């Protein structure tokens, strides 16, 4: 595809894959990301940021950030991938290119702990109110253990009369 050639001419392209006619994956380095996104937006017609997603490659010690762009005229998607260090997950924001990126980055920060420098609303609660543990979408987070500790044991399936048991709990509590 010509667009890949043009990208290769201009930027460091680490990996590339043409998934479908209208879907291309391109990998690049962190330094090249913003120039590439700007280039794609201004010259190739990828006007829309569809979303940003994050993958936790715990084995490699990396987070993968995928920027999914959409060109409305050509009706094409391009996904720009970039890997960042898992131990120091710092990256720059792109909300000056697409303002809506602010919310995606905020969510990724909340779920993965990736730190987007320059994002104005970074760190405000989005979905998780009062979160008190490591970011839950990291693969080293044990969600079952957390759930059992915080929300209690899953009630046995055989239990039928819940009301009675709650009343017992009242009484128990009162006795204390």
């Amino acid at each position, binding site marked *: 595809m010509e667009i890949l050639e043009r990208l290769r001419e201009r930027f460091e392209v680490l990996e590339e894959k043409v998934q479908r006619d209208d879907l291309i994956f391109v990998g690049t380095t962190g330094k090249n990301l913003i120039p590439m996104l700007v280039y794609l937006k201004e010259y190739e017609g990828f006007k829309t940021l569809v979303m940003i997603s994050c993958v936790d490659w715990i084995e490699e010690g990396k987070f993968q950030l995928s920027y999914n762009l959409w060109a409305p005229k050509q009706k094409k998607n391009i996904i720009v991938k970039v890997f960042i260090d898992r131990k120091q997950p710092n990256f720059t924001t792109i909300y000056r290119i697409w303002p809506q990126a602010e919310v995606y980055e905020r969510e990724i920060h909340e779920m993965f702990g990736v730190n987007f420098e320059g994002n104005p609303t970074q760190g405000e609660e989005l*979905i*998780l*109110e*009062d979160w*008190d*543990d490591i970011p*839950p979408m990291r693969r080293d*987070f044990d*969600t*079952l253990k*957390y*759930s*059992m500790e*915080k*929300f*209690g*044991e*899953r*009630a046995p*399936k055989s239990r039928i009369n*819940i*009301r009675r048991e*709650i*009343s017992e*709990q*009242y009484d128990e*509590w*009162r006795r204390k």
Partner: protein
Amino acid sequence: MDKKNYFLDEKPEKLTYGGVFRKIDDWARARSLWVVAYGTGCGSIELRPTFTSRFDAERLGMRMVGTPRQADVLIISGYLTVKTLKRVIRVYEQMQSPKYVVALGACPINGGMYYDSYNAINQLDLYLPVDVWITGCMPRPEAILAGFKRLQELIDSGRADGWKKYIENLDWYRENQRKIIKNWKMPNYNW
């Protein structure tokens, strides 16, 4: 004057249940259930057919209302995250007694398919007094109607007294609620 006056900070009194008209009252309450239209989870989509032409819950005297102040029944329609739970508690407490809670689906009972989720609660009755459980994932409108029938029977016989229990054991409920809602940014008494 400080901001204190914004919210009422006074513990509600315990309510008595009885009086001369108790029979009539229960009869009327059972036949006039106004549901607060607050969709908390995936099950709220099942409520639309329930209340419209095909299943027609209105023939049981039920109605959707837009504000908790006028409602009698709060339907918990599916899983509750911590974030939603805060709002649900507030809505419940803003309803006027007598009031009833109906929980739909497996999730409020024991977490359902979200039992291991980091954010969905596992057992609703630790936090709110549930009068009727309707299982299923999700229960179909028929099941919901059957659940409401059951609720009506409970009210008729005076056994749907979760609202009373809630006030009597308010401290216990609060303790449970505060256990998972670390940052309690709500007024102490929400009405």
